[in-house]
């Protein structure tokens, strides 16, 4: 039997495979497809204090090996979450992590303070990288000072595991990773979507209502992998790799580059069972290579 469990700070994962925020709903949408409790963890969709209705349709455009989205953090707010979602997701025997968003530092802090009351949430993922909302979001992820401030503020009210999710739309990803580490984050997750765009040539207009949107899927994987590798070599806290992971082989690239865990995003749209298949694939790979513990291959190429 190979060992698949990994640790993200004080949080134990039964395997390194989680699902990415905004691509896995609240988990229950997948109940028909597989037992969600098999996963290492699930990151719930982006949550804000107040309900948000997101951006106008059209919000999606297919691109070569990827897609653009401009959802814009549509969600029903923390009250609805606490009353209607939390009781349901608490039943899963896995780490249920809330993706925390705001337009101001106060927003982020207020939300973190609300979630502290929910004892079955072992970690939050601080999203300072959403490219799809006018105010807030990516500004925190592309400006080092704002990033530091918001992480520090949230750290001061959130005692459990704090994951900071970074934006790839920056010159130096390691600068932001170091800031997160310095401010006491327990882990870094990356990447969020790359800012992109598409035009409907027939109709001579942008494909998205917001003109630009977030690029995800295998197209971004080489960029994501590079940033994960750079980050894993720049900080000591664990790095969670995200970006274009469709198969176990893709996931293994991130582990070999230094990610302690990974998140499956867009893949779940194409094959809802992707995440469990990836767990199986990682297990098989380790068995074939006669490696007994997944932790042995984390950062392998950096040795």
């Amino acid at each position, binding site marked *: 039997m190979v060992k698949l469990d990994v640790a993200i700070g004080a949080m134990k994962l039964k395997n390194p495979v989680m699902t990415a925020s905004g*691509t896995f709903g609240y988990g229950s949408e997948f109940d028909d*497809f597989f037992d969600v409790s098999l996963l290492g963890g699930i990151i719930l969709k982006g949550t804000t204090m107040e309900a948000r209705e997101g951006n106008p*349709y059209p919000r999606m455009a297919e691109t070569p090996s990827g*897609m653009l989205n401009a959802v814009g953090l549509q969600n029903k707010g923390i009250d609805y979450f606490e009353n209607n979602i939390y009781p349901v997701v608490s039943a899963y025997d896995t780490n249920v992590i809330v993706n925390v968003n705001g337009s101001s530092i106060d927003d982020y802090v207020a939300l973190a303070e609300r979630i502290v009351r929910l004892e079955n949430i072992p970690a939050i993922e601080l999203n300072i990288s959403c490219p799809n909302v006018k105010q807030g979001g990516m500004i925190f992820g592309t400006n080092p000072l704002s990033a530091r401030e918001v992480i520090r503020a949230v750290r001061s009210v959130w005692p459990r595991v704090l994951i900071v999710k970074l934006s790839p739309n920056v010159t130096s990803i390691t600068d932001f990773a170091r800031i997160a580490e310095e401010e006491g984050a327990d882990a870094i997750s990356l990447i969020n979507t790359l800012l992109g765009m598409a035009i409907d040539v027939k109709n001579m207009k942008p494909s998205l209502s917001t003109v630009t949107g977030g690029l995800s899927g295998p197209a971004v994987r080489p960029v994501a992998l590079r940033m994960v590798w750079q980050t894993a070599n720049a900080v000591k806290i664990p790095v969670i790799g995200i970006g274009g992971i469709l198969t176990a082989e893709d996931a293994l690239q991130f582990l070999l580059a230094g990610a302690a865990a990974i998140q499956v995003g867009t893949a779940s*749209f*194409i094959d809802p*069972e992707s995440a469990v298949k990836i767990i199986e694939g990682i297990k098989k790979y380790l068995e074939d290579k006669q490696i007994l513990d997944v932790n042995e291959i984390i950062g392998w190429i950096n040795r």
Partner: protein
Amino acid sequence: MAKRVEYFTVKNNTRLNSDIFILELTTAEQLPELKPGQFAQLKVEGSPDTFLRRPFSIHDVDYASNSIKMLIQIAGSGTRRLSRLKTGEKLNLVYPLGNSFTIPGKDSSILLAGGGCGIAPLLFLGRYMKSRGLKPQLLLGFRDSERIVEYSEYESIGPVWLTTEDGSRGEKGYLTDHSILRNERFDHVYCCGPEPMMKAVAGYCRETGTDCEVSLEHLMACGFGVCLCCVVDTVRGKLCSCTDGPVFNTKDLKW
């Protein structure tokens, strides 16, 4: 009904005209109960330009042989690839997805109105209604007589009225120009087709106080309610076309 990810086998792929074909798919599993208006997300293999699945309405169901049909119009690379599938090839489906048309009470007067490949869900709907003792009439609109497909299948449901834009068969003009809409009143209209057509039908229904359901074809990524890409503006806020729809009552839409 539990959603599934399942491989189907192509039983038949029948070209109806230069644009439209019917895929008949069969599964080794027992088909779940399917409802008219529901759809499936098809994985298109071997098409480098087709990254996401593609949604198609269920056109017809045969529980005895565990087969379903899709009526598909070639719109781009994904549908072109599907049009080339051969008998025996495998196809992965996520299904059944979406809500369904509301089945009204007995003795309602019902019109099923469809344009182009929008007629796809109406065959299943019509058969379903007929098997429950309802007597829908059908109004189908096509560009020209060469585009008319599956006429006799629809005729087996009830009376079929036709329009063609060039007047080569049925009444000349758009679907909403047909005299039946002036000569009769319906309790329920069920409509699927290009959005301008559906909006015209919705307008007619608003004016005549007719209840109207439409099946929307919004762009989808996942098809089962997690990506929030397929939203529709409704009087109850933004709803997902893939889970709250694709069927909407037009009184709920901000049209």
